[in-house]
């Protein structure tokens, strides 16, 4: 095993440990937030909206959308954290002069973001079960598929801040992130509808929507959580998100190197 690999592995472990020192307080806040958001959405769509004609399984349907979007909403906070650091304290600059490669440093951030959004997703399942109760049957869930897919999409959301940071070069520009990037990705990412529903009455629009990674994230989670019927094939979603991960990783490292003018 090469010395550099040993150095990289050791440093990665320590960087992650340093980031996780205060994880408990961070997680408590995040889990409260997700419970408020998911709880109110699932309750309204699972019970109240039925009197407006929504089907009974709309609550679990929304839960799948929320699970896919946890990382998307974390993306906003994670990007703010990185931009604020680059514009302010520049702690990342210290890390980038440590004896390691840029990939190791960035991977420690990615893992930190990943751990937080994964923890949120995991705690959401029992919480949602309590709210939806009979509407959400845990025995219908393809757990292995769900686990692989939730890992994959949260990894994707954890990488994406590095691409965004490279283009949102000031705190002021962060205002654009929510309205111009996250909101359209979410609204056209199938949170309130499945891709096939859109395809049946607006085929052209449905093809455009296939450019949106959120669509695959949402559909893949639905296929694992609620069954394959009526959704894009789980394996297509898996493959496409994997491709998005590869492209985003390459792009994120390249763009950040350019932005920070790194060795």
């Amino acid at each position: 095993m090469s010395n550099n690999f040993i150095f990289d592995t050791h440093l990665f472990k320590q960087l992650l440990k340093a980031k996780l020192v205060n994880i408990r307080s961070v997680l408590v806040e995040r889990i409260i937030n997700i419970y408020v958001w998911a709880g109110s959405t699932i309750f309204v769509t699972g019970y109240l909206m039925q009197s407006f004609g929504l089907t009974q399984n709309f609550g679990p349907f929304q839960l799948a959308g929320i699970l896919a979007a946890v990382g998307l909403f974390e993306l906003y906070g994670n990007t703010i954290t990185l931009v604020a650091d680059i514009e302010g304290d520049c702690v990342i600059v210290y890390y980038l002069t440590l004896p390691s490669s840029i990939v190791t440093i960035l991977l420690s951030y990615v893992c930190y973001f990943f751990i937080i959004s994964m923890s949120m997703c995991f705690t959401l399942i029992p919480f949602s079960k309590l709210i939806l109760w009979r509407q959400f049957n845990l025995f219908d869930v393809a757990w292995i598929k769900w686990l692989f897919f939730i890992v994959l999409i949260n990894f994707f959301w954890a990488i994406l801040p590095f691409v965004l940071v490279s283009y949102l070069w000031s705190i002021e520009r962060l205002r654009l992130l929510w309205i111009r990037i996250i909101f359209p990705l979410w609204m056209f990412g199938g949170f309130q509808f499945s891709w096939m529903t859109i395809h049946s009455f607006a085929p052209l629009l449905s093809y455009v929507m296939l450019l949106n990674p959120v669509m695959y994230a949402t559909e893949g989670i639905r296929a694992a959580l609620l069954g394959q019927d009526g959704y894009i094939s789980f394996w297509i979603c898996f493959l496409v998100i994997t491709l998005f991960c590869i492209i985003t990783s390459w792009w994120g490292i390249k763009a950040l190197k350019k932005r920070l003018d790194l060795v």
Partner: protein
Amino acid sequence: MSQSNSYIEIKNIKKSYRCTDGSIKNALNGVSLVIKRGEVFGLLGVNGAGKTTLSSIIATLHPPTSGEVLFNGESIYSDLIAYRSQIGFCPQRPNLDGLLTLEQNLRFAGRYYRMSESEINDRLQKLVKQFELGDYLKKKASELSGGYRQRFMIARSLMHSPKLVILDEPTVGLDPHIRRQLWSKILELKNEDVTVILTTHYLDEAEQLSDRVCIIDKGLIKLIDTPENLLADFKKKNLEDVFLGLMHEIKDENHE
């Protein structure tokens, strides 16, 4: 200067940046110099002269546009990890991890360089005593005054006992008496055979601390010599007068 004497050798370094308005700024225009083992090497110049650019290239934060930096005769990029293991970098802007206590900042700084816990404890004790940090270890960086934040920054850069320390304007914005206190800490490094690259625009600081000073202006080296030789050559009483004299000469040359 003989090659064997050189510790860091900088060969014709040029660095250009693209500004936000799209124009190109040449921060360094072909800098060559040699830094000897165990010396305090002062990089002097007005704001924007290229000191910080040069020190961040030596710290491997930014790559040069052209030219090379040799460490013990080898390019610093030939084994970047080995080189980085031997340097300590204290940037101009304090960048302690605000989520950690100051003790955790120092402990992790040791762990990042694969020090054992017993080595970390010994080193921590020594640095805490040397920089008088004992009362602040459980605090966070945001609770510190500028002077103590800077002490912690220097202490962190020394945690892994580097052979080469790059201090970029370590005393900027500090009260005169705190500056003096930090000077004594920097001089102590010399006794430990640590090579120090000290970037500063305080001329008294460079005069007091540096074995040799290098004056940079507009990305070019104007002078490199010992403070004593510069005072003798320019027939001045202090480095400030030498610097001002030199700047006048440069201004006159530019007018001609």
